[in-house]
């Protein structure tokens, strides 16, 4: 089991606010790794640091053993490390199929390819993936007119279309109804088992992340609080204190 992402002492501050303080973690290949923590604990900042949205203050980030902390967003994306956004981001004035088609990998794009048309098998793959997330019938609708949950599914499908090696998902189930959540969990698991995509997931929905992840990291106040398999995290007193509120236990004692 090799590590896809290795963070070593990553720190990031915005002015006086230390969002990430010497975080060291590892995302193993072919697994689903979870990242939890209270609001403002630095989860999204860590994601942004990994995919290159801002430079980090200290530490190192390696992707497949290669240092990526000095690369730009596009270069990292082309290496096969992709993220989805907490506030869903799709190309809102294009239809679903177009959203999918432009999400093909851009790893080896030549100038000639810029003007080429999409071969039928790419369109077919786009349609298959739309079906995978249950948007096939709506594929010609303008994506900005879809419901929030459907946009979230579309964004997930777009990420799969890009054939990433590692996918960072920022709260994939937020704003999605319970029935759809089960379907989404199933699809996330299948993305790992069938397509071999390593997942790194931020999630607030505890039953979801406990059922999904093989391994969970918990952040609090920009520091790494705990790390381990779901059962261990669930019973970790520090996590319970940080997440459920320590005063609750203190009061009842």
């Amino acid at each position, binding site marked *: 089991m090799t590590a896809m992402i290795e963070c070593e002492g990553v720190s990031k501050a915005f002015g006086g606010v230390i969002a990430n303080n010497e975080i060291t973690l590892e995302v193993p290949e072919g697994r689903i790794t979870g990242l939890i923590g209270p609001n403002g604990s630095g989860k999204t900042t860590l994601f942004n640091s990994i995919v290159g949205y801002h430079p980090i203050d200290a530490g190192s980030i390696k992707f497949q053993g290669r240092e990526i902390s000095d690369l730009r*967003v596009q270069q990292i994306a082309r290496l096969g490390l*992709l993220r989805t956004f907490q506030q869903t*981001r799709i190309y809102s*004035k*294009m*239809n679903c199929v*177009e959203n999918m088609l*432009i999400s093909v990998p851009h790893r080896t794009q030549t100038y000639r390819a810029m003007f080429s048309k*999409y071969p039928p098998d790419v369109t077919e793959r786009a349609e298959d993936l739309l079906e995978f997330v249950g948007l096939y019938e709506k594929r010609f609708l303008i994506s900005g007119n879809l419901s929030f949950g459907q946009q979230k599914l579309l964004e997930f499908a777009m990420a799969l279309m890009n054939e990433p090696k590692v996918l960072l998902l920022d709260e994939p189930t937020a704003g999605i109804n319970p029935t759809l959540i089960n379907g989404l969990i199933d699809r996330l698991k299948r993305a790992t088992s069938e397509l071999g995509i390593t997942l790194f997931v931020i999630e607030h929905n505890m039953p979801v992340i406990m059922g999904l992840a093989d391994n969970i990291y918990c952040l609090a106040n920009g520091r790494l609080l705990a790390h381990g398999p779901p059962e261990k995290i669930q019973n970790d007193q520090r996590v319970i204190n940080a997440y459920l509120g320590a005063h609750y236990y203190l009061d009842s004692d």
Partner: protein
Amino acid sequence: MNTRLRRTLPYAGLLIAGIAAPFLFPDYTFQFTVLWVMILFALTWDILGGQMGYNSLGNIAFFGVGMYICAVVQIGLYYDVAQYTASYGAVKVEFTADQYFTGLAVGLIAAGLGAMVFSIILGWVVFGLRGPYFAIGTLGVALSAGELTGAWDYVGGGGGIALPIYPGEPDDRSLFFYVLSFTLTIILFFLLRWIYLGRFGLAANAIRDDEEKAEGMGIHTMRYKTVGWAIAAFFLGISGALFGNMIGFIEPLEVAFPTVTFGLFMVVMCLLGGRGTLWGPVIGATLFHTFKEVTWIYLLGWQWVALGALIVVSVVFFQQGIVGWVKEKWPEKFGIAVDDRALAETDPDLDEAPSQRLRRQTEAAQ
């Protein structure tokens, strides 16, 4: 077959109208030539402004750069440019027909390529700007290009340059420039149609909708922007060279870098017709130019007021433009609809995926 015919019809109509116009209305050949240049303006502006959401107010700079490059090449091939411009026509210069056409041909190509190189260098500087900053930055480039040219004696400064005279009859001359502008615009139109249908079109729209997301997905955004602008500059450069020769005399502020007239018209024509569509700029330019010419004839004295009113009305009340409005009104005509064909089958096999069912149906139909 029927749908195919219906789809080809507008394109055929455009071609036929373009070929027939100078024969049906020979007195208006000059006006039609200007109309094709206007359509070219709108089409080139739309590549960045409509498809990519980069509102440039300085595209007219490529027009002027092309115009001057062509003039310098045309003269420089046979005479000393500095001497020619310094004499202000005092020295009698003659261009033979051979010299004229060779100079023009080389000049047109040089104008296109020169404007293109200029756009690539400029893009490298200004593509870091977004939104209104990009608009103002490019506007500054166009304005200063005009002023700088006006201060440059080698190309005649503010006094301008008189271009070589067309060796032939005036009627032949106007037809000659009509054919060139028409051909240039039609080539651009079909080139854009082709690239908008492929990956370029989608990437451009992706940059328009969410450039940060596009970067996050690994799209070569800078490359698409640069190439899009280079295409616009290439055609604008050639059109500037043609326009200069058609007028016969060029100077920096009114002819080569008319930022507040042509430079703004190209934006307004796109908005009027519908930005981000292939036909919008064509329709917008045709309507705008017709409206402008009609008011110039029948509302003389009030023509700028009328034109201003048209601009205000279209920007305030009609932002999506004509084609955009039609698309909003009848989305299903443009294929924007839920695809329920797969569910329409009687007694459907529910285990079969909709896409599979649809593909099976299509195969069975063939």
